[in-house]
């Protein structure tokens, strides 16, 4: 465990693989990695807000997924995020759902 950034274990989800060198490697480029996570949380929240959910980074190693009433789950990576989000919100989160897409499209005109 790195005492500076609080990372215990590694994340092996495919989306955590190197998109840019260093972005998701644990031992180098810590700042890049943090920046990437912050960007992920920001984008995920745009999506999750449509379902009354929000995501925050937890110690640079996991995420906290919460409902508006405070029900919270820890999720490890994007692979776990969506099943947890469906469980917490009690509905299917479908990225192909036209009304949902209209909402996403409204973000960027």
């Amino acid at each position, binding site marked *: 465990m790195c005492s500076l950034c609080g990372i215990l274990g590694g994340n*092996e989800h*495919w*989306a*955590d*693989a*190197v*998109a*840019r060198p260093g972005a998701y490697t644990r031992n180098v480029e810590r700042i890049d990695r943090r920046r*990437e996570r912050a*960007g*992920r949380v920001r*984008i*995920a929240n*745009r*999506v999750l807000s449509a379902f009354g959910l929000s995501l925050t980074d937890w110690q640079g190693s996991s995420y906290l997924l919460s409902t508006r009433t405070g029900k919270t789950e820890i999720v490890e990576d*994007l*692979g776990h*995020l*969506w*099943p947890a989000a*469906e469980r917490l919100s009690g509905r*299917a*989160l*479908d*990225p*192909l759902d*036209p009304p949902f*897409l209209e909402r*996403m*499209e409204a*973000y*960027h*005109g």
Partner: protein
Amino acid sequence: MAEPAIPAMTPVNLITGFLGSGKTTLLKRLLADPALHDTAVLINEFGEVGLDHHLLERLDDTMVLLQSGCLCCTIRGDLADALRDLLSKRERGLVPPFRRVVIESTGLADPFPVLSTLKSDPVLRHHFKAATVITTLDAVNGIRQLETYGESVRQAAIADVIVLTKTDIAEESDVLRLTEDVRRFNPDAPIVAASETLGADRLLNGPARETAGGFYCEPVPDGNALSQHASSIQSFVMTIDTTIDWTAFGIWMTMLLNRHGDRILRVKGILNVEGEAFPVAIHGVQYLVHVPVHMTSWPSADRRSRIVFIVDGIEPALIERSFVAFNGLGVSSPAARQVEEA
């Protein structure tokens, strides 16, 4: 005493194919190859009588029989246990030090759970890696099976290599039609006839999904519905003119596969990721995506991203619209760069 080095990640091949399509015959042939003397074999039996088992000549201590039915729901745990057991025995020297595992799945199974077991089991994922999936397809009955049984289509769609069996007793026109059918939902897997000399190395080791060589992105022919029974399965290529925001892509793809993974038989793509000089190749099977690969060059002058989807009953336009909406959320957007066409 020098022992052959055991690979850090033991490759696991899956042989799948419909009932009676010649999986065991193929396995038997492959195992006769001296190069495979250090292979452990797992057989998944269907039904109480292990016919396949009795047909196999090579049974040794490293063979574990998975006892019941279909891999989809009930056997996954068994498969994980069997592989863990093999691993443990190898470490303790109770079985010969195998360097490869071959799993023969039941003819009625969707082969996906085998791959998912390798990826998701907390122990197995550090010791085993999915190697090629080999699908046997019966040249005599294959067309009818593809039309009638969804499992058969899934088995062919997931394949890295397709072996056509019984071509010696099939009409040539049937073989041609079958090949055309298969190409519509598996555009790039090599199709070899079992009557050819089958190099074990070629089947089990290649084509490597880690390399860019032969990356397929040809336009899919029109009228790509299979038949009226299986017409919901189609492949299409999504071509993207802007760079891709990797973070947004990860969120989009995971959300898409979470909800529709059972209907997205395969995803394979070459992505022009914002901030990267060279493309990133992705390869997914249903709910599972392999670790993306950084390629060291572009396969052609075309710098656009291309993603091949093989889907069952999903409207291609909707996937495209969804992708664009998500990519627009990325850090690099809305100023995502236009990339040059060839």
